[in-house]
């Protein structure tokens, strides 16, 4: 039983939101930004997205124009940041990750997303397939702004939002799980907001 804080009432959730907001989260209307370092600005002419084998071999690579020529989807979803805010009904456009992997012969168990600026995050392969993950290039009908991860970021809305890596440049296929940037610094390896897996041991 949690300790009751004398005099604390709190702001109760809109009943319409109940069932959509994971434990320990609150909803926001704006779009907070969290990043460990400066925002990178990679020109689209040099941008590419790669699928890399665990050996380091490049299995597939798309230029920006090639990537944008791929069929994309509009996704409306709720997002949950480990710093406690959730944002409901966000609208994105992106390429499903399974489409990027469909011609790749592999039997990986995990992927490590890598990004401009050196950021990485790890995910089980099965969590980025079957309509659960996209490489998003637009938010709310506009090109994704650099501070929100543009030109393209991963979108994996069923996990805490640090898994939706900004400025993503590719996926490395891994046989075994390997902690990414925040995962090596105390954040949960998997990060399910509904099980409140914020930190190691949660």
């Amino acid at each position, binding site marked *: 039983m949690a*300790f009751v*804080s004398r005099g604390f009432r709190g702001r109760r959730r809109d009943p319409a939101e109940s069932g959509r907001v994971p434990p320990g989260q609150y909803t926001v*209307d704006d779009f907070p*930004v969290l990043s460990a370092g400066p925002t990178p600005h990679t020109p689209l002419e040099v941008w590419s997205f790669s699928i890399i084998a665990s050996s380091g071999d490049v299995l597939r690579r798309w230029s920006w124009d090639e990537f944008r020529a791929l069929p994309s989807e509009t996704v409306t979803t709720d997002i949950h940041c480990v710093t*406690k805010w959730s944002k409901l009904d966000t609208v994105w456009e992106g390429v499903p990750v399974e489409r990027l992997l469909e011609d790749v012969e592999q039997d990986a168990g995990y992927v490590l997303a890598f990004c401009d600026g*050196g950021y990485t995050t790890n995910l089980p392969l099965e969590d980025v397939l079957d309509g659960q993950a996209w490489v998003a290039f637009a938010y709310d009908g506009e090109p994704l702004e650099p*501070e929100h991860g543009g030109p393209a970021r991963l979108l994996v809305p069923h996990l805490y939002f640090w898994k939706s890596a900004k400025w993503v440049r590719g996926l490395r296929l891994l046989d075994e799980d390997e*902690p990414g940037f925040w995962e090596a*610094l105390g954040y949960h390896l998997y990060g399910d907001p509904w099980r409140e897996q914020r930190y190691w041991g949660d």
Partner: protein
Amino acid sequence: MAGAAVLGRLTPLAWRLAEAVEIVPETPRASTLVLDVPDWPGHRAGQHVDVRLTAEDGYQAQRSYSIASAPEEAGLALTVERLDDGEVSPYLVGELRPGDRFELRGPIGGYFVWEAGTAGSLHLVGGGSGLVPLMAMLRHRAAAGGGTPTRLLLSARSLQDVLYRDELEQLAAENGDLRVALTLTRERPPGWTGYDRRVDEAMLAEVFGPPAADGLAFVCGPTRFVEAAASGLVALGYDPSRVRTERFGPTGG
């Protein structure tokens, strides 16, 4: 790294019951909560904690707050700014009294941290209450003897919004290797000769000079502030991997 994660899984970050020992008003909107936290495992300068409040009917709310105290200090201090539309901060700054208790866990965050003795200079850029984790670094630096060449550029709306003003003046007066520059963006006292605008590249160049090959820069504040300051440092030639940022949005608290 994988080994550390496996080890970490065995030691969950437990909720602890913190007791407010002292509540120190810092500005009209911010107070420092000095806490007694039994079995506190210690922290590094720059880290934060999660606070969890529970109402009588079981309703809970959580927020993160930066640690203001140095690892060397006895009590754990959080400085909290009251957000008028906030849910947790008006309770912590307003309702909470000495002797009250609430739940907390941490320390959290292993990147936005500075250890005394780290090679090179320490460059700090703070906007508003973004000064809090930077103050933990300055206090840690002072406790360790203050050898690191350090500069702080602090942006505040007015002089009365500046956190820890007396202590900052004292720290700078005591130690020639620490320089503090202040910019007041909205309201200046008569005769003010300091900066009077938002942080920009020219101001960063004047305060911090050319980038050093080693050392670290830490930038903390609201998103727009951090974007401007961190981009400005990179434009001046700072290695992006040596510029660490922590941001908080206008909502929350």
